[in-house]
């Protein structure tokens, strides 16, 4: 029989203060990160809200001395990935069996395009529009590398994958983004 341990503690003032300070200092960065991933403000609000609730519940697992922003970005990245999987699964269930995935504007099957189409309609600026053309993984890696300016190693830690995976995703994403940006600049030279 193990040594008796003290029972779990109820929510403390410490947890409350931790969350309050986190939202104060990192709320804007987290919200903007969520916005870049989702491409619309309503989803970004939901994602940010869920991420801070996770922060509150798991605040003890945060290691002092490490980057809080990296920690919460990891939470946001995982939540976003889970949510997209859930949404895509729902769409695919609604599509009849005889409607096989088709190539459409690249390598994306038609079955998942309603999500992308919806997102494209909700987007505001040119960056948001360009990001909406990337896959979820490519979008995450571009935002972390090119907007947030994390190193490959930091991105690998946040996304929970190897540096090699980060590198290959970034190369593909940047090549695609380069084409999109050049097209955007040709269409709107003033931007």
């Amino acid at each position, binding site marked *: 029989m193990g040594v*008796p341990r003290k029972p779990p503690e109820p*929510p403390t003032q410490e947890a409350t203060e931790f969350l309050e300070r986190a939202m104060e200092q990192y709320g804007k960065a987290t*919200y903007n990160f969520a916005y870049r991933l989702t491409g619309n403000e309503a989803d970004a609000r939901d994602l940010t809200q869920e991420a801070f*609730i996770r922060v509150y519940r798991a605040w003890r697992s945060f290691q002092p001395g490490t980057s809080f922003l990296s920690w919460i970005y990891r939470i946001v990245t995982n939540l976003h990935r889970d949510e997209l999987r859930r949404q895509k699964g729902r769409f695919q269930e609604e599509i009849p069996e005889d409607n096989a995935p088709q190539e459409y504007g690249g390598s994306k099957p038609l079955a998942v395009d309603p999500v992308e189409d919806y997102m494209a309609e909700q987007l505001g600026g040119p960056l948001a529009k360009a990001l909406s053309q990337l896959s979820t993984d490519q979008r995450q890696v571009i935002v972390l590398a090119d907007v947030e300016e994390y190193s490959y190693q930091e991105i690998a830690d946040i996304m929970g994958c190897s540096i090699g995976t980060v590198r290959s995703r970034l190369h593909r994403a940047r090549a695609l983004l380069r084409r999109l940006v050049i097209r955007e600049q040709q269409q709107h030279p003033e931007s």
Partner: protein
Amino acid sequence: MHYNADTLDDYLHRALGPEPDADIHAHLETCTDCRALYDELAAVRDWVRTAARAEELEFPSIIKARVWERIREQPLQPSFADRLRALWRPMIAVPVAAVIAGFVYLGIPGVHGGSQSPGVAATYLLEEHAALASDNPLADRGLIVPASVVDGGQASGLIGADDSAPSSER
């Protein structure tokens, strides 16, 4: 020799080691093709950063309010590990262990003094047989029953096994 876009991208984002970094740096001084590609990649990076700053949003206060509301509705729950640990308190663990030990003891044959008794006792079967034999003694030819059951110990143990066989009494 020319560098490809992927390598120049890594160079642009300082993802290479010191040696390849120095090589590319020197190469870009002389190669106009690589320089042009590098400038294009740098322009894309700058465009992304400028657009990101331009599209930056303020943190909506509604998020804060909704987070606190959700937390009030669903206060901190003990984790699964905490709940598991709580089960090991002696107050709960001792009776649970006793019950499990009881089940183990009753569930293993031989541990508690021998095998299970059969559903029907042998004496019952013998009595039933005797009752049948009294109505029709040839009903169960070939069956061995104790002589005491059939004729009170006067007959042999074999009933009707071989009627033609010579008997010592004949």
